[in-house]
Protein backbone atom coordinates (compact mmCIF):
# COMPACT_ATOMS: atom_id res chain seq x y z
CA UNK A 1 0.00 0.00 0.00
CA UNK A 2 1.23 3.43 -0.86
CA UNK A 3 1.19 5.85 1.99
CA UNK A 4 1.43 9.45 0.80
CA UNK A 5 4.38 11.23 2.32
CA UNK A 6 6.24 8.06 3.26
CA UNK A 7 8.90 8.71 0.65
CA UNK A 8 9.43 12.20 2.04
CA UNK A 9 9.89 10.74 5.51
CA UNK A 10 12.38 8.19 4.19
CA UNK A 11 14.34 10.94 2.49
CA UNK A 12 14.27 13.05 5.62
CA UNK A 13 15.55 10.12 7.65
CA UNK A 14 18.51 9.89 5.30
CA UNK A 15 19.32 13.60 5.47
CA UNK A 16 18.73 13.56 9.22
CA UNK A 17 21.27 10.77 9.59
CA UNK A 18 23.74 12.66 7.42
CA UNK A 19 23.25 15.68 9.64
CA UNK A 20 24.72 13.84 12.61
CA UNK A 21 27.21 11.76 10.66
CA UNK A 22 30.86 12.72 11.19
CA UNK A 23 32.29 14.71 8.31
CA UNK A 24 35.42 13.38 6.71
CA UNK A 25 36.53 16.26 4.50
CA UNK A 26 40.22 16.99 4.85
CA UNK A 27 40.68 20.60 5.98
CA UNK A 28 43.58 21.04 3.61
CA UNK A 29 45.70 24.04 4.53
CA UNK A 30 45.28 23.41 8.25
CA UNK A 31 45.68 19.66 8.30
CA UNK A 32 47.91 18.04 5.73
CA UNK A 33 48.28 14.34 5.18
CA UNK A 34 51.73 12.92 5.92
CA UNK A 35 53.36 11.72 2.73
CA UNK A 36 55.94 8.96 2.41
CA UNK A 37 59.56 10.16 2.29
CA UNK A 38 59.94 9.33 -1.39
CA UNK A 39 56.78 11.20 -2.39
CA UNK A 40 57.61 13.58 -5.20
CA UNK A 41 54.14 14.76 -6.07
CA UNK A 42 52.42 14.28 -9.39
CA UNK A 43 54.35 13.96 -12.65
CA UNK A 44 53.25 16.68 -15.00
CA UNK A 45 54.30 17.95 -18.39
CA UNK A 46 55.26 21.62 -18.50
CA UNK A 47 53.99 23.82 -21.33
CA UNK A 48 55.92 26.56 -23.07
CA UNK A 49 54.38 30.01 -23.69
CA UNK A 50 52.97 28.81 -27.01
CA UNK A 51 50.98 26.08 -25.37
CA UNK A 52 53.21 23.27 -26.57
CA UNK A 53 54.63 20.56 -24.41
CA UNK A 54 58.11 21.44 -23.31
CA UNK A 55 58.87 17.75 -23.36
CA UNK A 56 61.13 16.88 -26.30
CA UNK A 57 61.04 13.18 -25.54
CA UNK A 58 64.76 13.30 -24.71
CA UNK A 59 64.55 10.49 -22.15
CA UNK A 60 66.61 12.39 -19.59
CA UNK A 61 63.81 12.17 -17.04
CA UNK A 62 63.53 8.47 -17.72
CA UNK A 63 67.23 8.13 -17.13
CA UNK A 64 67.20 9.82 -13.73
CA UNK A 65 63.96 8.32 -12.49
CA UNK A 66 65.05 6.26 -9.47
CA UNK A 67 62.37 3.64 -9.94
CA UNK A 68 62.52 3.62 -13.73
CA UNK A 69 58.86 4.39 -13.95
CA UNK A 70 59.08 6.53 -17.09
CA UNK A 71 58.84 5.15 -20.55
CA UNK A 72 57.92 7.18 -23.59
CA UNK A 73 57.55 7.77 -27.25
CA UNK A 74 55.85 10.57 -29.09
CA UNK A 75 56.34 13.65 -31.23
CA UNK A 76 59.24 15.98 -30.71
CA UNK A 77 58.99 19.76 -30.83
CA UNK A 78 59.27 19.74 -34.64
CA UNK A 79 56.28 17.50 -35.00
CA UNK A 80 58.33 14.47 -36.02
CA UNK A 81 57.42 11.07 -34.82
CA UNK A 82 60.21 10.16 -32.45
CA UNK A 83 61.42 6.82 -33.56
CA UNK A 84 62.85 5.48 -30.33
CA UNK A 85 59.40 4.71 -29.14
CA UNK A 86 59.01 1.02 -29.70
CA UNK A 87 55.38 0.14 -29.58
CA UNK A 88 54.62 -0.20 -25.96
CA UNK A 89 53.04 -3.46 -25.05
CA UNK A 90 51.41 -3.82 -21.73
CA UNK A 91 53.43 -6.91 -21.03
CA UNK A 92 56.60 -4.85 -21.23
CA UNK A 93 55.71 -3.45 -17.88
CA UNK A 94 56.70 -6.83 -16.52
CA UNK A 95 60.26 -6.33 -17.63
CA UNK A 96 63.20 -7.04 -15.28
CA UNK A 97 63.09 -3.49 -13.98
CA UNK A 98 59.53 -3.95 -12.84
CA UNK A 99 60.61 -7.05 -10.98
CA UNK A 100 63.48 -5.17 -9.39
CA UNK A 101 61.13 -2.38 -8.41
CA UNK A 102 58.83 -4.86 -6.75
CA UNK A 103 61.78 -6.41 -4.87
CA UNK A 104 61.43 -9.71 -6.70
CA UNK A 105 64.36 -11.60 -8.30
CA UNK A 106 64.73 -10.23 -11.80
CA UNK A 107 64.32 -12.58 -14.68
CA UNK A 108 66.26 -11.01 -17.49
CA UNK A 109 64.99 -11.52 -21.00
CA UNK A 110 61.63 -12.78 -19.90
CA UNK A 111 60.02 -11.62 -23.07
CA UNK A 112 62.92 -12.46 -25.34
CA UNK A 113 61.06 -15.17 -27.18
CA UNK A 114 58.46 -12.77 -28.35
CA UNK A 115 60.72 -11.27 -30.97
CA UNK A 116 61.80 -13.24 -33.97
CA UNK A 117 65.25 -11.73 -33.98
CA UNK A 118 67.94 -14.05 -32.75
CA UNK A 119 71.23 -12.48 -31.87
CA UNK A 120 74.69 -13.84 -31.26
CA UNK A 121 75.08 -13.14 -27.56
CA UNK A 122 78.68 -14.32 -27.25
CA UNK A 123 79.71 -12.13 -30.19
CA UNK A 124 78.02 -9.12 -28.58
CA UNK A 125 79.82 -9.79 -25.28
CA UNK A 126 83.13 -9.87 -27.11
CA UNK A 127 82.29 -6.51 -28.70
CA UNK A 128 81.37 -5.03 -25.35
CA UNK A 129 84.54 -6.35 -23.75
CA UNK A 130 86.49 -4.92 -26.65
CA UNK A 131 85.35 -1.48 -25.57
CA UNK A 132 86.17 -2.27 -21.96
CA UNK A 133 82.47 -2.25 -21.05
CA UNK A 134 82.53 1.56 -20.76
CA UNK A 135 79.27 3.48 -21.03
CA UNK A 136 80.89 6.08 -23.31
CA UNK A 137 81.30 3.37 -25.91
CA UNK A 138 77.54 2.75 -26.14
CA UNK A 139 77.17 4.43 -29.51
CA UNK A 140 80.16 2.58 -30.92
CA UNK A 141 78.67 -0.70 -29.74
CA UNK A 142 75.34 0.22 -31.34
CA UNK A 143 77.17 0.93 -34.58
CA UNK A 144 78.77 -2.50 -34.47
CA UNK A 145 75.41 -4.14 -33.83
CA UNK A 146 73.69 -2.23 -36.60
CA UNK A 147 76.57 -3.04 -38.94
CA UNK A 148 75.93 -6.70 -38.38
CA UNK A 149 72.12 -6.86 -38.15
CA UNK A 150 71.08 -3.77 -40.07
CA UNK A 151 69.17 -2.50 -37.06
CA UNK A 152 69.29 -2.67 -33.26
CA UNK A 153 67.37 -5.75 -32.18
CA UNK A 154 65.63 -5.32 -28.87
CA UNK A 155 67.32 -8.43 -27.51
CA UNK A 156 70.69 -6.87 -28.22
CA UNK A 157 69.71 -3.71 -26.38
CA UNK A 158 68.47 -5.77 -23.45
CA UNK A 159 71.68 -7.73 -23.40
CA UNK A 160 73.74 -4.53 -23.51
CA UNK A 161 71.64 -3.09 -20.66
CA UNK A 162 72.07 -6.21 -18.55
CA UNK A 163 75.74 -6.80 -19.33
CA UNK A 164 76.91 -3.22 -18.95
CA UNK A 165 74.49 -2.51 -16.05
CA UNK A 166 73.16 0.60 -17.73
CA UNK A 167 69.52 1.55 -17.23
CA UNK A 168 67.25 0.23 -19.93
CA UNK A 169 65.87 3.72 -20.42
CA UNK A 170 69.37 5.05 -21.02
CA UNK A 171 70.22 2.37 -23.52
CA UNK A 172 66.91 2.74 -25.27
CA UNK A 173 67.22 6.51 -25.25
CA UNK A 174 70.73 6.43 -26.69
CA UNK A 175 69.51 4.09 -29.40
CA UNK A 176 67.10 6.79 -30.46
CA UNK A 177 69.88 9.19 -31.34
CA UNK A 178 71.39 9.40 -34.76
CA UNK A 179 70.68 6.86 -37.41
CA UNK A 180 70.00 3.74 -35.44
CA UNK A 181 67.02 1.67 -36.38
CA UNK A 182 64.96 -0.22 -33.88
CA UNK A 183 63.00 -2.27 -36.35
CA UNK A 184 64.44 -4.48 -39.07
CA UNK A 185 64.50 -2.57 -42.31
CA UNK A 186 65.54 -3.57 -45.74
CA UNK A 187 68.16 -1.46 -47.39
CA UNK A 188 69.60 1.82 -46.32
CA UNK A 189 68.16 4.76 -44.51
CA UNK A 190 68.88 8.18 -45.95
CA UNK A 191 68.29 10.96 -43.46
CA UNK A 192 68.34 14.57 -44.58
CA UNK A 193 69.05 16.99 -41.77
CA UNK A 194 66.42 19.70 -41.32
CA UNK A 195 68.01 21.54 -38.43
CA UNK A 196 68.25 25.33 -38.72
CA UNK A 197 71.90 25.32 -39.79
CA UNK A 198 71.39 22.75 -42.53
CA UNK A 199 68.21 24.41 -43.80
CA UNK A 200 69.98 27.74 -44.20
CA UNK A 201 72.93 26.07 -45.92
CA UNK A 202 70.69 24.58 -48.60
CA UNK A 203 69.27 21.47 -47.00
CA UNK A 204 66.01 21.86 -48.87
CA UNK A 205 67.55 21.66 -52.33
CA UNK A 206 69.46 18.65 -51.04
CA UNK A 207 66.22 17.02 -49.98
CA UNK A 208 64.65 17.86 -53.36
CA UNK A 209 67.62 16.31 -55.18
CA UNK A 210 67.47 13.11 -53.12
CA UNK A 211 63.71 12.85 -53.49
CA UNK A 212 64.17 13.17 -57.19
CA UNK A 213 67.06 10.72 -57.33
CA UNK A 214 65.35 8.01 -55.25
CA UNK A 215 61.91 8.60 -56.71
CA UNK A 216 60.22 8.50 -53.29
CA UNK A 217 58.89 11.01 -50.87
CA UNK A 218 59.93 11.54 -47.27
CA UNK A 219 58.90 8.63 -45.07
CA UNK A 220 58.65 6.18 -47.98
CA UNK A 221 60.73 3.22 -49.13
CA UNK A 222 61.65 2.38 -52.69
CA UNK A 223 59.80 -0.51 -54.25
CA UNK A 224 62.81 -2.82 -54.11
CA UNK A 225 63.23 -1.98 -50.44
CA UNK A 226 66.80 -0.82 -50.90
CA UNK A 227 66.36 2.82 -49.88
CA UNK A 228 64.29 4.72 -47.35
CA UNK A 229 64.17 8.49 -47.02
CA UNK A 230 63.39 10.53 -43.96
CA UNK A 231 64.19 13.83 -42.36
CA UNK A 232 65.40 14.63 -38.88
CA UNK A 233 66.74 17.65 -37.06
CA UNK A 234 69.04 15.52 -34.99
CA UNK A 235 71.74 14.52 -37.43
CA UNK A 236 73.80 16.84 -35.27
CA UNK A 237 76.32 17.91 -37.87
CA UNK A 238 76.21 21.67 -37.61
CA UNK A 239 79.83 22.19 -38.71
CA UNK A 240 79.36 20.36 -42.01
CA UNK A 241 75.94 21.64 -42.97
CA UNK A 242 74.06 20.77 -45.06
CA UNK A 243 74.41 17.16 -44.04
CA UNK A 244 72.96 13.83 -45.07
CA UNK A 245 73.21 10.66 -43.12
CA UNK A 246 73.18 7.31 -44.80
CA UNK A 247 72.64 4.65 -42.16
CA UNK A 248 75.11 5.73 -39.47
CA UNK A 249 77.54 7.56 -41.72
CA UNK A 250 77.21 11.33 -41.94
CA UNK A 251 78.24 13.15 -45.12
CA UNK A 252 78.63 16.89 -45.55
CA UNK A 253 78.73 19.62 -46.60
CA UNK A 254 77.05 18.54 -49.81
CA UNK A 255 75.60 20.30 -52.80
CA UNK A 256 72.66 18.77 -54.60
CA UNK A 257 75.01 17.58 -57.33
CA UNK A 258 77.35 15.95 -54.84
CA UNK A 259 74.41 14.24 -53.16
CA UNK A 260 73.32 12.68 -56.47
CA UNK A 261 76.86 11.59 -57.04
CA UNK A 262 77.16 10.10 -53.56
CA UNK A 263 74.00 8.16 -54.02
CA UNK A 264 75.14 6.87 -57.40
CA UNK A 265 78.46 5.78 -55.87
CA UNK A 266 76.69 3.93 -53.08
CA UNK A 267 74.41 2.22 -55.59
CA UNK A 268 77.34 1.14 -57.74
CA UNK A 269 79.17 -0.25 -54.72
CA UNK A 270 76.06 -2.11 -53.67
CA UNK A 271 75.60 -3.59 -57.07
CA UNK A 272 79.24 -4.75 -57.11
CA UNK A 273 78.83 -6.31 -53.64
CA UNK A 274 75.67 -8.09 -54.74
CA UNK A 275 77.39 -9.39 -57.88
CA UNK A 276 80.33 -10.65 -55.82
CA UNK A 277 77.98 -12.35 -53.38
CA UNK A 278 76.24 -13.98 -56.30
CA UNK A 279 79.53 -15.31 -57.69
CA UNK A 280 80.61 -16.68 -54.33
CA UNK A 281 77.43 -18.56 -53.78
Amino acid sequence: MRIPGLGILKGMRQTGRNFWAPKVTNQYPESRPTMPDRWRGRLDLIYDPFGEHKCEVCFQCAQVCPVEAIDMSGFDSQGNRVRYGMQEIYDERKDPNAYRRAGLPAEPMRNAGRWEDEIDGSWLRVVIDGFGGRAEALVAIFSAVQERYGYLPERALRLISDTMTIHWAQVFGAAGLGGFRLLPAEGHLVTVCTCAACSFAGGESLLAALTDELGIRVGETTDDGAWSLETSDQVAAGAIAPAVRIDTMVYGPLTAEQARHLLAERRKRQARAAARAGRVS
Partner: protein
Amino acid sequence: MDLLLGIGRFLLATMLLLLLTVPTAFVVIQMELKVIAQMQLRYGPNRIGPWGMFQSTIHGFKFLAKEDHMPDQADRATFTLAPWMVYMAAAMSMLVMPFAPGAIAADFNIGIVYFFAVIGLSVVGLLIAGWASYNKYSLLGGLRSAAQMVSYEIPLTLSVVGVVVLGGTLNFRELIGWQQAHGWMLLWQPVGLGIFYIASLAEINRTPFDMVEADSELVAGPFTEYSGMRFGFFFFAEYVALFIMSGIMAALFFGGWLAPWPFPAQLDGFGGTLYGLFWFFLKSYLFVFLAVWLRATLPRVRVDQLMGMAWKVLLPLAMLNLLVTAGVVVWLNL
Protein backbone atom coordinates in the same frame (compact mmCIF):
# COMPACT_ATOMS: atom_id res chain seq x y z
CA MET B 1 -1.29 62.36 26.14
CA ASP B 2 -2.58 58.87 25.59
CA LEU B 3 -2.45 59.40 21.86
CA LEU B 4 1.17 60.59 21.97
CA LEU B 5 2.11 57.64 24.15
CA GLY B 6 0.39 55.34 21.71
CA ILE B 7 2.21 56.85 18.73
CA GLY B 8 5.54 56.69 20.55
CA ARG B 9 4.94 53.09 21.52
CA PHE B 10 3.99 52.24 17.96
CA LEU B 11 7.09 53.90 16.51
CA LEU B 12 9.34 52.14 19.00
CA ALA B 13 7.77 48.78 18.30
CA THR B 14 7.94 49.10 14.51
CA MET B 15 11.53 50.31 14.70
CA LEU B 16 12.50 47.37 16.86
CA LEU B 17 10.76 44.95 14.53
CA LEU B 18 12.36 46.43 11.45
CA LEU B 19 15.74 46.17 13.14
CA LEU B 20 14.93 42.63 14.23
CA THR B 21 14.38 41.48 10.65
CA VAL B 22 18.03 41.93 9.71
CA PRO B 23 19.61 39.69 12.37
CA THR B 24 16.74 37.26 11.87
CA ALA B 25 17.60 37.00 8.20
CA PHE B 26 21.28 36.53 9.08
CA VAL B 27 20.52 33.78 11.56
CA VAL B 28 18.12 31.95 9.26
CA ILE B 29 20.49 32.15 6.29
CA GLN B 30 23.37 30.95 8.42
CA MET B 31 21.21 28.07 9.63
CA GLU B 32 20.36 27.20 6.06
CA LEU B 33 24.01 27.25 4.96
CA LYS B 34 25.22 25.21 7.87
CA VAL B 35 22.38 22.71 8.23
CA ILE B 36 22.17 21.89 4.53
CA ALA B 37 25.93 21.47 4.45
CA GLN B 38 25.80 19.05 7.36
CA MET B 39 23.03 17.10 5.68
CA GLN B 40 25.10 16.86 2.51
CA LEU B 41 28.07 15.54 4.49
CA ARG B 42 29.97 18.80 4.22
CA TYR B 43 31.28 21.09 6.93
CA GLY B 44 29.66 24.16 5.47
CA PRO B 45 31.03 27.65 6.04
CA ASN B 46 33.77 27.50 8.64
CA ARG B 47 36.16 30.33 7.80
CA ILE B 48 34.58 33.58 8.93
CA GLY B 49 34.24 33.95 12.67
CA PRO B 50 34.10 31.08 15.14
CA TRP B 51 32.65 28.00 13.36
CA GLY B 52 31.96 30.23 10.36
CA MET B 53 29.24 32.02 12.32
CA PHE B 54 29.49 35.31 10.41
CA GLN B 55 29.32 33.89 6.90
CA SER B 56 25.77 35.12 6.27
CA THR B 57 26.56 38.50 7.83
CA ILE B 58 29.45 38.90 5.44
CA HIS B 59 27.13 37.91 2.61
CA GLY B 60 24.78 40.67 3.66
CA PHE B 61 27.47 43.32 3.76
CA LYS B 62 28.85 42.05 0.48
CA PHE B 63 25.52 42.99 -1.14
CA LEU B 64 26.06 46.57 -0.01
CA ALA B 65 29.43 46.70 -1.73
CA LYS B 66 28.17 45.41 -5.06
CA GLU B 67 27.32 47.42 -8.11
CA ASP B 68 23.65 48.35 -8.32
CA HIS B 69 22.83 47.62 -11.91
CA MET B 70 19.59 48.44 -13.68
CA PRO B 71 18.74 47.29 -17.23
CA ASP B 72 18.37 50.12 -19.77
CA GLN B 73 14.79 49.29 -20.64
CA ALA B 74 13.69 48.65 -17.08
CA ASP B 75 10.87 50.68 -15.63
CA ARG B 76 12.81 52.72 -13.10
CA ALA B 77 10.07 53.45 -10.62
CA THR B 78 8.65 49.96 -10.29
CA PHE B 79 12.07 48.36 -10.55
CA THR B 80 13.15 50.36 -7.51
CA LEU B 81 9.90 49.82 -5.68
CA ALA B 82 9.65 46.05 -6.04
CA PRO B 83 12.30 45.02 -3.46
CA TRP B 84 10.72 47.39 -0.97
CA MET B 85 7.28 45.95 -1.48
CA VAL B 86 8.49 42.42 -0.91
CA TYR B 87 10.57 43.37 2.07
CA MET B 88 7.92 45.53 3.67
CA ALA B 89 5.32 42.81 3.23
CA ALA B 90 7.52 40.56 5.33
CA ALA B 91 8.51 43.22 7.85
CA MET B 92 4.99 44.63 8.29
CA SER B 93 3.50 41.25 8.98
CA MET B 94 5.79 41.01 11.98
CA LEU B 95 3.68 43.76 13.56
CA VAL B 96 1.13 41.25 14.84
CA MET B 97 3.56 38.47 15.69
CA PRO B 98 2.81 37.30 19.24
CA PHE B 99 6.38 36.98 20.53
CA ALA B 100 5.53 36.80 24.22
CA PRO B 101 2.90 38.08 26.64
CA GLY B 102 3.30 41.86 26.52
CA ALA B 103 5.54 41.68 23.45
CA ILE B 104 3.13 42.15 20.58
CA ALA B 105 3.73 45.33 18.62
CA ALA B 106 0.10 45.84 17.61
CA ASP B 107 -2.31 43.68 19.54
CA PHE B 108 -5.54 44.38 17.71
CA ASN B 109 -8.64 42.34 17.26
CA ILE B 110 -8.24 41.31 13.62
CA GLY B 111 -4.55 40.38 13.82
CA ILE B 112 -4.97 37.17 11.82
CA VAL B 113 -6.80 38.92 8.98
CA TYR B 114 -4.18 41.67 8.96
CA PHE B 115 -1.39 39.13 8.86
CA PHE B 116 -2.69 37.23 5.86
CA ALA B 117 -3.59 40.45 4.06
CA VAL B 118 -0.10 41.86 4.45
CA ILE B 119 1.92 38.73 3.76
CA GLY B 120 -0.02 38.40 0.51
CA LEU B 121 1.34 41.74 -0.63
CA SER B 122 4.71 40.20 -1.44
CA VAL B 123 3.19 38.66 -4.56
CA VAL B 124 2.58 42.15 -5.91
CA GLY B 125 6.24 42.97 -5.33
CA LEU B 126 7.40 39.85 -7.14
CA LEU B 127 5.02 40.47 -10.02
CA ILE B 128 6.15 44.04 -10.60
CA ALA B 129 9.77 42.97 -10.16
CA GLY B 130 9.26 40.50 -12.97
CA TRP B 131 7.51 43.03 -15.14
CA ALA B 132 9.85 45.96 -14.51
CA SER B 133 13.02 43.99 -15.28
CA TYR B 134 12.28 43.84 -19.03
CA ASN B 135 13.47 40.25 -19.16
CA LYS B 136 11.43 37.27 -20.24
CA TYR B 137 12.79 35.04 -17.51
CA SER B 138 11.87 37.64 -14.94
CA LEU B 139 8.41 38.06 -16.36
CA LEU B 140 7.79 34.32 -16.46
CA GLY B 141 9.06 34.05 -12.91
CA GLY B 142 6.82 36.89 -11.80
CA LEU B 143 3.77 35.35 -13.45
CA ARG B 144 4.54 32.00 -11.93
CA SER B 145 4.90 33.58 -8.53
CA ALA B 146 1.55 35.29 -8.93
CA ALA B 147 -0.15 32.06 -9.99
CA GLN B 148 1.47 30.06 -7.24
CA MET B 149 0.97 32.44 -4.38
CA VAL B 150 -2.62 33.32 -5.26
CA SER B 151 -3.45 29.62 -5.55
CA TYR B 152 -1.86 28.66 -2.28
CA GLU B 153 -3.26 31.58 -0.36
CA ILE B 154 -6.72 30.06 -0.61
CA PRO B 155 -6.03 26.73 1.15
CA LEU B 156 -3.68 28.59 3.51
CA THR B 157 -6.39 30.97 4.63
CA LEU B 158 -9.11 28.32 4.66
CA SER B 159 -7.02 26.13 6.94
CA VAL B 160 -6.69 29.05 9.33
CA VAL B 161 -10.43 29.72 9.20
CA GLY B 162 -10.88 26.35 10.89
CA VAL B 163 -8.63 27.50 13.68
CA VAL B 164 -10.49 30.79 13.96
CA VAL B 165 -13.89 29.08 14.06
CA LEU B 166 -12.70 26.82 16.83
CA GLY B 167 -10.97 29.53 18.82
CA GLY B 168 -13.71 32.08 18.19
CA THR B 169 -11.26 34.96 17.80
CA LEU B 170 -9.14 36.75 15.24
CA ASN B 171 -6.70 38.02 17.85
CA PHE B 172 -3.44 36.14 18.31
CA ARG B 173 -3.24 36.77 22.07
CA GLU B 174 -6.75 35.49 22.67
CA LEU B 175 -6.12 32.51 20.40
CA ILE B 176 -3.10 31.58 22.49
CA GLY B 177 -5.21 32.03 25.60
CA TRP B 178 -7.76 29.64 24.11
CA GLN B 179 -4.98 27.14 23.46
CA GLN B 180 -3.85 27.41 27.08
CA ALA B 181 -7.35 26.51 28.20
CA HIS B 182 -8.15 23.78 25.67
CA GLY B 183 -4.78 22.38 24.64
CA TRP B 184 -2.75 23.28 21.61
CA MET B 185 -4.58 23.72 18.33
CA LEU B 186 -2.41 20.94 16.95
CA LEU B 187 -4.67 18.43 18.73
CA TRP B 188 -7.89 19.98 17.41
CA GLN B 189 -6.85 20.77 13.86
CA PRO B 190 -4.30 18.19 12.65
CA VAL B 191 -5.61 18.29 9.06
CA GLY B 192 -5.58 22.07 9.16
CA LEU B 193 -2.00 21.98 10.36
CA GLY B 194 -0.95 19.76 7.45
CA ILE B 195 -2.65 22.00 4.91
CA PHE B 196 -1.28 25.10 6.56
CA TYR B 197 2.28 23.79 6.55
CA ILE B 198 2.30 22.76 2.90
CA ALA B 199 0.56 25.93 1.77
CA SER B 200 2.81 28.14 3.86
CA LEU B 201 5.91 26.60 2.25
CA ALA B 202 4.44 27.43 -1.13
CA GLU B 203 3.38 30.90 -0.01
CA ILE B 204 6.93 31.86 0.95
CA ASN B 205 8.49 30.12 -2.06
CA ARG B 206 10.42 27.49 -0.17
CA THR B 207 11.63 24.20 -1.62
CA PRO B 208 9.93 22.03 -2.82
CA PHE B 209 7.73 24.85 -4.12
CA ASP B 210 10.40 27.38 -5.09
CA MET B 211 9.00 27.73 -8.58
CA VAL B 212 9.56 31.46 -8.49
CA GLU B 213 13.30 31.13 -8.55
CA ALA B 214 13.59 27.75 -10.28
CA ASP B 215 17.23 28.40 -11.14
CA SER B 216 17.49 25.66 -13.72
CA GLU B 217 14.54 26.93 -15.74
CA LEU B 218 14.22 30.65 -15.10
CA VAL B 219 17.77 31.69 -14.18
CA ALA B 220 16.58 33.35 -10.97
CA GLY B 221 12.97 34.21 -11.74
CA PRO B 222 11.98 37.80 -11.02
CA PHE B 223 15.36 38.40 -9.36
CA THR B 224 17.36 37.82 -12.53
CA GLU B 225 18.08 41.47 -13.28
CA TYR B 226 18.55 42.52 -9.68
CA SER B 227 21.95 43.03 -8.14
CA GLY B 228 23.48 44.62 -5.09
CA MET B 229 21.29 45.52 -2.16
CA ARG B 230 18.12 45.41 -4.23
CA PHE B 231 18.65 41.69 -4.64
CA GLY B 232 19.68 41.61 -1.01
CA PHE B 233 16.23 42.84 -0.03
CA PHE B 234 14.54 40.05 -1.95
CA PHE B 235 16.91 37.59 -0.42
CA PHE B 236 16.37 38.87 3.09
CA ALA B 237 12.61 39.03 2.60
CA GLU B 238 12.57 35.39 1.65
CA TYR B 239 14.29 34.31 4.84
CA VAL B 240 12.44 36.72 7.06
CA ALA B 241 9.23 35.32 5.58
CA LEU B 242 10.43 31.83 6.46
CA PHE B 243 10.91 32.88 10.06
CA ILE B 244 7.55 34.66 10.13
CA MET B 245 5.67 31.68 8.73
CA SER B 246 7.34 29.44 11.29
CA GLY B 247 6.42 31.85 14.05
CA ILE B 248 2.82 32.11 12.88
CA MET B 249 2.56 28.36 12.70
CA ALA B 250 3.87 28.16 16.25
CA ALA B 251 1.30 30.75 17.33
CA LEU B 252 -1.67 29.19 15.53
CA PHE B 253 -1.07 25.51 16.14
CA PHE B 254 1.64 25.05 18.76
CA GLY B 255 0.53 27.38 21.51
CA GLY B 256 2.74 30.34 20.60
CA TRP B 257 4.68 31.37 23.69
CA LEU B 258 3.17 28.63 25.87
CA ALA B 259 5.67 26.17 27.27
CA PRO B 260 5.01 22.46 26.65
CA TRP B 261 3.69 20.13 29.32
CA PRO B 262 6.31 19.56 32.06
CA PHE B 263 7.08 23.29 32.31
CA PRO B 264 4.73 25.96 33.65
CA ALA B 265 2.82 27.26 30.64
CA GLN B 266 3.26 30.93 31.48
CA LEU B 267 4.97 33.09 34.07
CA ASP B 268 4.00 36.57 35.27
CA GLY B 269 5.72 39.91 34.87
CA PHE B 270 8.88 40.70 32.93
CA GLY B 271 10.33 37.26 33.58
CA GLY B 272 7.22 35.86 31.96
CA THR B 273 7.93 37.89 28.83
CA LEU B 274 11.45 36.49 28.59
CA TYR B 275 10.13 32.99 29.30
CA GLY B 276 7.57 33.40 26.53
CA LEU B 277 10.17 34.78 24.15
CA PHE B 278 12.36 31.76 24.81
CA TRP B 279 9.63 29.25 23.97
CA PHE B 280 8.37 31.22 21.02
CA PHE B 281 11.79 31.46 19.42
CA LEU B 282 12.55 27.84 20.22
CA LYS B 283 9.40 26.69 18.44
CA SER B 284 9.85 29.10 15.54
CA TYR B 285 13.41 28.03 14.89
CA LEU B 286 12.43 24.38 15.15
CA PHE B 287 10.07 24.96 12.24
CA VAL B 288 12.76 26.92 10.40
CA PHE B 289 14.99 23.91 10.90
CA LEU B 290 12.24 21.65 9.57
CA ALA B 291 11.93 23.79 6.45
CA VAL B 292 15.68 23.69 5.89
CA TRP B 293 15.63 19.95 6.44
CA LEU B 294 12.93 19.63 3.80
CA ARG B 295 14.97 21.75 1.44
CA ALA B 296 17.95 19.46 1.89
CA THR B 297 15.76 16.46 1.14
CA LEU B 298 13.26 17.29 -1.55
CA PRO B 299 13.64 18.25 -5.20
CA ARG B 300 11.51 20.97 -6.73
CA VAL B 301 8.04 19.94 -7.95
CA ARG B 302 6.91 20.62 -11.49
CA VAL B 303 4.79 23.68 -12.09
CA ASP B 304 1.71 21.70 -13.15
CA GLN B 305 2.09 19.38 -10.15
CA LEU B 306 2.25 22.48 -8.00
CA MET B 307 -1.00 23.94 -9.29
CA GLY B 308 -2.71 20.54 -9.30
CA MET B 309 -1.74 20.08 -5.67
CA ALA B 310 -3.26 23.41 -4.68
CA TRP B 311 -6.56 23.13 -6.55
CA LYS B 312 -7.22 19.39 -6.53
CA VAL B 313 -5.93 18.30 -3.16
CA LEU B 314 -5.40 21.12 -0.69
CA LEU B 315 -8.43 23.23 -1.54
CA PRO B 316 -11.06 20.43 -1.28
CA LEU B 317 -9.32 19.14 1.84
CA ALA B 318 -9.35 22.59 3.42
CA MET B 319 -13.04 23.04 2.54
CA LEU B 320 -13.90 19.68 4.06
CA ASN B 321 -11.87 20.47 7.14
CA LEU B 322 -13.64 23.79 7.54
CA LEU B 323 -17.05 22.17 7.04
CA VAL B 324 -16.42 19.46 9.61
CA THR B 325 -14.96 21.93 12.09
CA ALA B 326 -17.89 24.30 11.71
CA GLY B 327 -20.36 21.40 11.95
CA VAL B 328 -18.78 20.09 15.14
CA VAL B 329 -18.65 23.57 16.66
CA VAL B 330 -22.33 24.11 15.97
CA TRP B 331 -23.30 20.61 17.03
CA LEU B 332 -21.45 20.59 20.33
CA ASN B 333 -22.05 24.29 20.88
CA LEU B 334 -18.36 24.88 21.68
